[in-house]
């Protein structure tokens, strides 16, 4: 088994320059920085419009020290396929390709291209950083905005529908590797990237990204809130290796502990859930408990 990376042996080489244009306390800034360390130098990035486009800086300055192709909103996975095709055609077999898109660019407008590329088995890693909304255009709902979250276009009642389960959709493509990660657990992200980097076909990462302005919390609490999402069992860290599901890191430990923090604590820490009623919260708590009793049972088998 691969040894777990710690803050002591994390490579020191940086691919993201200090001073990006991300908001203070942005979870994406953490995940991106650590993710690129895991991908390493010989990587070409493909990025659609999103907060990441802004984080990277404005022409002619760039905050990323990897070659990066900015593409249109719907085309990330197709463009990654195009880069790969060229690398094959020109015989450059030592270069990796990674798409890095938001949840809007993945779960909504980009899903068709992503599904197509995954079905073709294009060998790239696709990162969906999930800040649970269209943050770049001012916090509108996306397919992965959770039920009850207030956004700029679900302003009064919060989103009425459930979060779209994109990792499950991607796992249904029979990928060699699917992972759910969180910016609050960057080393788990790092190790998972390292683990799957040479696996065949498309690899999919879903990364939960606490977003201070979008979710309504003080920037200093980003990690805390990301962790709360995991500790409450609301967002789970896991991987699906060749179809085999397994909780990882903090989520795995929760199974041992068999004790979840009440989800209420997570909701109350952010203003976007302010319209959730006690009834809604208890319904969500019930759904989480049911999901986790499944995990406990599996653990006992």
């Amino acid at each position, binding site marked *: 088994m691969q040894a777990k990376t710690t803050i002591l042996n994390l490579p020191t080489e940086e691919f993201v320059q200090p001073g990006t244009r991300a908001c203070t306390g942005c979870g994406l800034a953490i995940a991106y920085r650590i993710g690129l360390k895991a991908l390493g130098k010989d*990587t070409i990035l493909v990025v659609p419009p999103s907060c990441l*486009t802004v984080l990277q800086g404005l022409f002619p*300055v760039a905050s990323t020290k990897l070659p990066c192709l900015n593409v*249109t909103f*719907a085309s990330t996975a197709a463009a990654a396929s*195009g880069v790969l095709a060229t690398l094959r055609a020109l015989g450059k077999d030592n270069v990796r390709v990674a798409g890095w898109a938001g949840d809007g660019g993945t779960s909504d407008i980009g899903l*068709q291209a992503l599904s*197509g590329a995954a079905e073709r088995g294009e060998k790239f890693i696709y990162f969906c950083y999930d800040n649970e909304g269209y943050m770049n255009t001012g916090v509108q709902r996306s397919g992965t905005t959770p039920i009850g979250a207030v956004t700029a276009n679900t302003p009064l009642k919060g989103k009425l529908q459930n979060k779209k389960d994109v990792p499950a959709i991607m796992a249904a493509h029979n990928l060699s590797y699917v992972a759910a990660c969180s910016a609050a657990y960057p080393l788990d992200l790092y190790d998972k990237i390292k683990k799957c980097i040479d696996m065949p076909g498309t690899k999919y990462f879903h990364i939960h990204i606490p977003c201070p302005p979008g979710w309504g919390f003080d920037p200093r609490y980003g990690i805390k809130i990301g962790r709360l999402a995991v500790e409450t069992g609301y967002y789970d860290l896991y991987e699906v290796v060749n179809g085999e599901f397994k909780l990882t890191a903090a989520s795995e430990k929760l199974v041992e502990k068999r004790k979840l923090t009440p989800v209420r604590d997570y909701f109350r820490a952010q203003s976007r859930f302010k319209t959730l009623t006690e009834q809604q919260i208890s319904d969500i708590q019930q759904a989480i408990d049911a999901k986790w009793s499944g995990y406990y049972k599996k653990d006992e088998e």
Partner: protein
Amino acid sequence: MHIIENGNVAAALGVRLCGVNVIAAYPITPQTPVTEKLSEWVEAGEMKAEYIPVESEHSALSVCIAATSAGARSFTATSSNGLLYMHEQVQWASGARLPIVMCVVNRAVGAPWNVWNDQQDSISQRDTGWMQMYASDHQQIIDTVIKAYYLAEKTSIPIMVCYDGYILSHTYMPFEVPDADKVKAFLPPFKPDYALDPNDPANLNTVTLPDVRMDVRGELAHGYMEIRYLLQEELRGALAVAAETEKRFDEIFGRGGDPYIEPYLCDDAEYVAVGLGSVTYQLRVAVDALRAEGIKVGVMGIKFYRPFPDEAIAKALKGRKGVIVYEKALSYGYEGALASDLKSALYDSLAGTGSMPYVQNFVLGIGGRDIKTHDLTETLRAATKGRVAKEPVWIGLKL
């Protein structure tokens, strides 16, 4: 080597001869056989290229955009709603200055559904910063594909090679397949100024401000407006590159002519019929008939539609009595786009000279409505007697 094949195969052979590295496409009638042929060659190992069977046209052009950004010569083809579905990427490709060549096998656009030929698809993309060339027969299709790569790579501007669906794409005609070695001599390997490379990282197509801005070395870098200005300037400059391309092609293959237009019996013509693509060859039959009656008519096919060779066209039409434009598309709400473009070219260079011809606009063949040579002859005859109407006149309409 001379062969008898259909227009789609002519296009595919051109692509193969150009040593394209990456092909991506999504099927749509009547384009489908071009890319089927290419997939067959790639799979059989007769052509060394990557063929990506994507899930949409938007993705097809996305693949080409990324492939060319990474340093490959790329190709795609489409028709009709496929081209419209690509529209976002069409603009992106020219803005990013990528020398992609795309065949547009012209077909009417929905709604309602119609699979037959007109040119509304490519004409609707005329303002996207791509070059557009129109072929009138199979020899022109294969030759234009080869010229297109040379021209696109010289200028870093993408090109659409347009040819009429069915009329050219599915009919069989004899044509000469250019010699592979000569194509190699004509078209040097693709060496882009910059290609995505971990050893020389750069961020391409970044958010760019309206104004110019200093880079880290203190040098001024373009703002969005400068970048777009240069696209326009270099598109205009591409007319000269097109002339050079035609000359080179003529020298190597022994086939050449005017780079922009294809005149037929125009020297002494008092009235010139103008069009894009195969209709101009059918117009030659009408012209022959009217010539036999002593009416001095000619036809001018326009090979280059964007950049618009306005000066060459105005020069060629100077002093004529009438210019009769036959179009298979409309700028809805006004008139045929070609008619407007011709008028503006004529106005620019002939206003006040007294040698300005009148312009009559005919619209025909929409959605594959049969174009009868008899109608061409009669409308052309009528138009030689003076301008028929200000509004475009639809030929063959049965209301």
